[in-house]
């Protein structure tokens, strides 16, 4: 059924991504691929993976942006995966019922046996969260590691999405964003977490924590002085410099 749940799901599971601490290492990307090519959406195929033109379906990708100019500018690493929107148009446009949003926790999934691979859901997603599998010819997307987070066979502390487990800088947080007391909701409230393109009205569940501005302000303004060609003072190195400079 591709109609959205009638009542808002009790839980809204999602990710909170800290753009201040993400260092763009792509560990989340690789761990996502690794888990999901053996998990719920398996296989997550690639074509020509070791050749000159590799291409394939990935559920999480890290972009790098340059925001601002000059000394105030910064590099921002920007991981992007499915945002599990409240008003998920990718679900409602699906003609077959393959795409659906879970009533219990709001996770958006694809039932691959029903998918005809028409690609309309990928068109309907403004964020580029869905990718067609080049071998299976069905749509693949982030499952929020639905096969990890409820999995009693793995240790309790690992029952979170693979990307969250893999992040070495703890830039990714997983939790229930409908619960205002949850750790992720407090992070969003405290750091001014925001939605991507909220004006489109998709109501994304995942939130982004903006880069902190303090560090940029503390940096010295203006051009950095060029390193002096000779060591200063009368010490040994200064003497050596003078001798070598002849």
């Amino acid at each position, binding site marked *: 059924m*591709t*109609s*959205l749940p009638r009542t808002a799901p009790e839980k809204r599971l999602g990710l909170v991504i800290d753009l201040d601490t993400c260092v*763009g290492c792509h560990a989340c*990307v690789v761990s996502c691929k690794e888990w999901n090519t053996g998990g719920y959406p398996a296989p997550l195929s690639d074509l020509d993976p070791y050749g000159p*033109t*590799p*291409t*394939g379906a*990935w559920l999480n*990708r890290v*972009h*790098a*942006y*340059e*925001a*601002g*100019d000059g000394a*105030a*500018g910064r*590099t*921002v690493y*920007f991981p*992007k995966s499915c945002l599990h929107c409240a008003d998920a*148009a990718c*679900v*409602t*446009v*699906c*003609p*077959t*019922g393959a795409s659906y949003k879970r009533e219990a926790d709001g996770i958006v999934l694809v039932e691959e046996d*029903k*998918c*005809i*691979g*028409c*690609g*309309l859901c*990928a*068109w*309907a*997603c*403004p*964020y*580029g969260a869905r*990718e*067609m599998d080049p071998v299976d*010819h*069905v749509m693949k997307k982030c499952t929020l590691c639905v096969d990890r987070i409820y999995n009693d066979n793995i240790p309790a502390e690992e029952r979170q999405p693979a990307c969250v487990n893999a992040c070495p800088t703890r830039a990714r947080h997983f939790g229930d964003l409908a619960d205002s007391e949850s750790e992720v909701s407090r992070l969003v409230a405290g750091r001014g977490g*925001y939605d*991507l*393109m909220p004006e*489109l*009205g*998709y109501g994304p569940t995942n939130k*982004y924590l*903006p*880069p902190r*501005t303090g560090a940029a302000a503390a940096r010295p303004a203006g051009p950095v002085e060029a390193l002096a060609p000779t060591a200063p003072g009368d010490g040994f190195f200064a003497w050596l410099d003078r001798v070598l400079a002849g």
Partner: protein
Amino acid sequence: MHPAPSIVLFTSASGTGYGLLFLLGLFGPLGLLPADRWLGIVAVALSLGLVSLGLLASTFHLGHPERAWRALSQWRSSWLSREGLAALATYLPALVFAFGWIVQESFAGGWTVAGLLAAAGAAATVYCTAMIYASLKPVRQWCHPLVVPIYLAFALAGGALWLSALAAVRGLGNSSSPAVALVLVLLAWGLKVLFWRRVDRAAPTRDTAAATGLGAFGTTRLLDPPHTEENYLLREMGFQVARRNAARLRRLALLFGAALPAALLLLCLVTHGWLAAAAGLLAASLGSLGIVVERWLFFAEARHSVTLYYGAALV
């Protein structure tokens, strides 16, 4: 957006087929068409042939065409599903109407009802096709109030062009169909020119800063893409036709789709016999070519918001 040949062919062929079916189903019962068996055979075959060709083409781009029947299930929420249902449902009255026309040579009574139902089904199907695109908020050029009127107008114009060609070939000398076709062709292209002016003038609504939410820091540019090669998103949604080429194609579409068919339709109006037939056929062929180019541009010029994450400056 990538102008997949199967989708361009589908929307233009089935649009023209449904437009023709609409006019047949309406004009027959209104007494504007002769209940002539041979005209019936050719007109119905052309209309349902174009429709079926289009529907068949639409399954070519599916990853799993064998599961296409599932697409009929989600009519509550999906315009694509509604389109499939409307398309299939329209065959029934269309075939009944064709039977009355071709076998009974009659538009009266029940055949009238069938004709009107077929016309309604044809209109509903094209409306659903248009709504698939008009409801996609990530594409500014599609989520536009003129998209639905344009789809309907082009379906009608394509259908009217072929109806006037068939009428001229059949030698229906006093037929008013070239005049109808002329009005509909000018209406469709008039709407299209208006649409082009509006989408060109409207400032793009989003840049990369708006898409990433990093605008507070200033201008936002892509520094490194997430991967070295193309991916599905870029192949499907990153297609861009150069502005210069788009402008040239628009002019060609106007020439072949509107100006030449209009001149030929005028010729068709004032002549008769083989000259009128030749003019009508040429007008319909050129007009259809123009519609294909128009549809190709509809896809190729559309910009999806996902390209903002991959380095597009504005969408």
